[in-house]
């Protein structure tokens, strides 16, 4: 039968060996008397190099960070807890590089070591909370992203309501005029034009919203066929020309590519061109220029849209193709869907799109790269399901 004291020392030895946290014990002179296996392993300091040495000699940073007073308090019977959020760590211990922090994240407590009602030293307990902190930070980032997405959605709904209402105001106004003056041919003609133009604007907005909705629910399908890229490009630019002229912006077309035939969805590729050139028109001031080039590489063609417009800051560049994103400083309105639709349509064609700009006020260049052979599909099928 073991004596109580023998049993107690067996427990202490067992804790020393197997405890899943660090324990340091000192006497009342703050000389280290205990240093368990967990600390040996984590700090790489064997017990014999630590035992018998003053605590603040082994860990001078404790005194430098004014944590030495907590040990004086412990000798007076007080317990102090040290939260990771305030202190990050108690003593510097290494941590795996994938956590992206320099020290093992810890929470700890420092308390008195009491025997028969007398304080005979101190005990420090250290927990490794690196994993938990990393997880909490991940959750925090996810929450920030969700909040941002929510804000963007709210802004989008407000903007959509505004943009849908604006053409309706003109439609309602002119409908009333037509009702009051049905015999005035000039007025009727003008009214019909305004109503048609505004309804088309509204239709365009609704199409954009439907496209994004189809893309995000993976319901957008391409109808691929072998088509002449130069022809599609020319047709698309011709339809944009009147808007450019109205804004006194020069649109130049440069087609050096000799190869012409590519596997494309003509309607969707035209949408890519319209959205990119419309974006440039929106941000290029009166008297500016937009140059659209078609260049050929061995397996793909490049369509480049370069403008002399407002340019893009380095900070905004990475967000340009995100749905609902609009630069804070943008005063140009719109739903912030055009470039997101471009990216999705280009990717559906198996291509990529990138934007470059030397900075604000210095113009921007958008480069679309699409393989001549179209996206890699099973049995060269003409239908490619959209990705989410």
């Amino acid at each position: 039968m073991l004596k109580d004291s023998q049993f107690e020392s067996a427990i202490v030895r067992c804790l020393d060996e197997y405890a899943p946290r660090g324990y340091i014990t000192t006497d009342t002179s703050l000389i280290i008397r205990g240093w368990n296996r967990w600390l040996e392993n984590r700090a790489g300091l064997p017990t014999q190099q630590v035992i018998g040495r003053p605590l603040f000699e082994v860990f001078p940073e404790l005194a430098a960070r004014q944590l030495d007073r907590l040990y004086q308090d412990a000798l007076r019977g007080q317990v102090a807890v040290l939260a990771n959020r305030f202190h990050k760590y108690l003593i510097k211990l290494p941590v795996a590089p994938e956590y992206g922090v320099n020290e093992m994240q810890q929470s700890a407590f420092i308390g008195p070591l009491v025997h028969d009602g007398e304080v005979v030293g101190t005990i420090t307990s250290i927990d490794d909370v690196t994993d938990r902190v990393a997880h909490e930070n991940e959750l925090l980032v996810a929450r920030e992203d969700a909040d941002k997405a929510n804000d963007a959605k709210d802004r989008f709904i407000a903007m959509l309501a505004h943009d849908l209402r604006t053409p309706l105001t003109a439609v309602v106004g002119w409908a009333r005029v037509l009702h009051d003056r049905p015999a005035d041919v000039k007025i009727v003609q003008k009214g019909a034009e305004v109503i048609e133009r505004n309804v088309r604007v509204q239709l365009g907005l609704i199409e954009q919203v439907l496209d994004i909705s189809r893309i995000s629910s993976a319901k957008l399908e391409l109808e691929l066929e072998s088509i002449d890229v130069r022809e599609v490009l020319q047709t698309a630019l011709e339809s944009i020309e009147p808007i450019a002229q109205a804004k006194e912006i020069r649109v130049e077309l440069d087609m050096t590519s000799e190869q012409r035939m590519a596997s494309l969805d003509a309607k969707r590729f035209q949408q890519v061109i319209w959205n990119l050139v419309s974006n440039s028109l929106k941000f290029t001031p009166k008297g500016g220029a937009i140059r659209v080039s078609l260049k050929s590489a061995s397996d793909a063609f490049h369509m480049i849209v370069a403008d002399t417009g407002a340019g893009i800051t380095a900070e905004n560049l990475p967000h340009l193709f995100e749905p609902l994103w609009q630069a804070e400083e943008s005063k140009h309105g719109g739903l912030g869907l055009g470039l997101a639709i471009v990216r999705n349509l280009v990717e559906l064609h198996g291509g990529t799109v990138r934007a470059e700009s030397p900075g604000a006020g210095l113009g921007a260049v958008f480069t679309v790269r699409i393989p001549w052979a179209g996206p890699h599909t099973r049995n060269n099928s003409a239908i490619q399901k959209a990705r989410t």
Partner: protein
Amino acid sequence: MLLSEKQSDALAELINIAFARTASSLSELSGHRVLLQAPGVEVVAIDELPSALRNFIKEEVVSVHQIFSGPVAGDALLILNHDGAIRLTDLLCESRVASNRLDTSAREALTEIGNILLNSCLGVFGNLLHVQVSFAMPRLHLESLDKLMRSITIGTEELRYAVVVSTAFHIKESAVSGYLAIVLGVSSLDRLLKAIENWEDEQRR
């Protein structure tokens, strides 16, 4: 329980000393100027404590609870309502976004805040009484007020009183209200009040 004017003033003065220490420690810890007010101090019988707190706490109570023992023994508690607990940790921990829950790290931080406050108060009382008080580990509880009351009254037949201090933490133009309660047996309270009176007399000499 009615305190004499002398006892009440002296108790308030001592609490203010402890609060000044706490505020200084919390300022150092957070890097922000923290002020801690103790607008009111009263002593109530333990069974009157829930009604003293009921106006402040409607639902869940967040408390940091520390048991102390020795010649003077009892329970020390920092009591906050749930919203106040979240706001206090957000203000002191520089949270990037306002939280709506107390995660493990926030609970730890709140435990340290309570621990600093309770250590300061009990340290001041211990010095006054020239006794060494031993502290248990502080524990954070999220529970109803009734459950909290049961946890501090269970297993004792002794008539107990609570020194109740309404508190307000002022940080970065915001204020978070809470209560400090030190629950003592009648003999410990008697000893404390006598020591407080003596201290007050010494101060006047």
